[in-house]
């Protein structure tokens, strides 16, 4: 949903991976000192700041969106390595909210997002900015501001994702996001940039990832596939999904434009 908010407003957000990583690291480091609630708040705050940096890079400095996203991912990787080493972020025993809470949010948020875009003026502005920022400007919308709000929201949602990762694995490890941010982006594309189909796509990818745990050690068609096969499934599926006909015609037309 974070990716949705950003890309619908026309900002390509390759940085979702970095945002998640940042949130995860911050939450893990802050939790022992501030408890789960405080940690979540701090993590969200830091993630929003990074997301706003992406906004600044693309809107004010006019750097290419993909470059900015990748650079932010690099900064996140380096910074989280730095912070985690410094503060001895543990890989277990970090206090956190129950995972179920995040899962519930993950199901509810797409519906809320869909409703917001469909029924409110703000939602209309969002889609208009993404479709054609210049014409939107003529209609009195300020694209930069819409995008700022969109990226703040992107930071919030993606921050939740990062915090959830920490809740799920009980701690922080380097590069723990393992490409999930990119898979999220793929889910968005497959879902045609609409909240509810994206939710379905995410569920599909999630099931693929879960298959690994279920089927490790179980032969398929008489052959024992190595554990790496199951681990590779989500990534392969993403490539196949992008090769499919899904999603191509619905790219927000103003994606990537200043």
């Amino acid at each position, binding site marked *: 949903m974070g990716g949705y908010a950003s890309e619908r407003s026309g900002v390509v957000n390759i940085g979702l991976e970095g945002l998640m990583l940042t949130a995860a690291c911050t939450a893990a480091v802050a939790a022992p000192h501030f408890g789960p609630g405080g940690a979540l708040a701090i993590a969200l705050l830091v993630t929003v700041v990074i997301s706003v940096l992406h906004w600044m*890079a693309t809107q004010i400095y006019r750097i290419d969106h993909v470059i900015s996203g990748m650079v932010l991912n690099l900064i996140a990787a*380096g*910074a989280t390595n730095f912070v985690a080493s410094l503060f001895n972020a543990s890989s277990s025993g970090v206090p956190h909210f129950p995972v179920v809470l995040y899962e519930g949010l993950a199901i509810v948020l797409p519906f809320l997002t869909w409703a917001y875009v469909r029924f409110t003026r703000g939602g209309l502005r969002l889609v208009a900015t993404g479709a054609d920022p210049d014409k939107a400007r003529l209609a009195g919308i300020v694209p930069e501001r819409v995008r700022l709000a969109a990226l703040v929201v992107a930071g919030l949602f993606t921050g939740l994702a990062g915090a959830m990762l920490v809740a799920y694995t009980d701690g922080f490890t380097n590069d723990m996001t393992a*490409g999930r941010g990119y898979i999220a982006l793929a889910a968005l594309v497959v879902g045609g940039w609409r909240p509810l189909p994206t939710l379905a796509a995410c569920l599909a990818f999630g099931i693929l990832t879960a298959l690994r745990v279920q089927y490790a050690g179980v032969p398929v068609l008489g052959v024992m596939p190595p554990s790496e*096969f199951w681990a*590779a499934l989500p*990534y392969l599926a993403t490539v196949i999904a992008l090769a499919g006909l899904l999603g191509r015609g619905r790219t927000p037309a103003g994606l990537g434009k200043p």
Partner: protein
Amino acid sequence: MNARILWLVLGSIGVVLGALAVCHVGPGVAFAALLKGSLGTPNGITKSLENTTPLLLAGIAVFLALRAGLFNIGAEGQFLVGALACTAVALKFPGVVGIVLGTVAAIAAGAAWAWPAGAIKAYRGGHEVITTIMLNSVATLLTGYMVGSGPMRAGGGDTTTASLTDATRLPAVIHSGAFSLNIALPLAVAMTAALGWWLRKTVSGYELRAVGANPTAALYAGVDPRKTAVRAMLASGAVAGFAGAVQVLAYEGRFYAGFSPGYGFDALGVALLAGESALALIPAALLFGVLAKGALNLQFVHVPKGITTVILALLILIVAAVRAKGVKKVA
């Protein structure tokens, strides 16, 4: 210089100094540690140059794609499959034959790994950033499997293939004391110059750049952007695979799990820093290579090495901002 850029530079310096302060380490100490680790000893210089070679070659690969307007984040995966393919072939054919065949195998493997991303982008509009990143993960898993529980593993406790014979390796051109320079680096430099020449002086190079600059205009000029895009990705993957072969033949002599500490990803940074000039790849790769070696020394002064990643990323950001300054907003 533009005020905004100035703020960016000052802000970046501030971030780095702040990070160092948190470690209770002065910038001078950190900088000295970096330099000493990378250039302070003959062994250090050798290693720094060793680092530079794959970065330069992979950098050429990414640069090639970049000039065609494509982001080949998949250089890492192409590098790995190229290295594995080269090792597999060279183990079977010792000597010069092995070197040649291994290199060919690597080029083919790298190109094959890049093809899906190119084709999907050109004919389905699927963003190559995502496809290449996904293929990276598959490559890491595949090659890991091959030397883990798979067929390429040499018996014994380590996840590695058998080693190539000395005759199947690329030789060093300078060897005095602790300092040694393999032929691979001059080779890479020559390739960079050749690339620059090809891009600027040949028709196909021009077509590539045209598609990168403005696909629609290129179309009207008679160039097929989709075919060019696929060809660019294939070439990019081929070079990345070649980089893998060189790494095996010149420096490693075998393939093992964890073969690449992220050369393919750093290559993206190298290419971004280089911008429009192929020759600029050389200093960019040197910078990355030297910093990578120097960063290992940072732990002795209690600075986590992640900080060099941040420094390089900020540098890319600043360079990108300076270049983007020329883009004017319409209305």
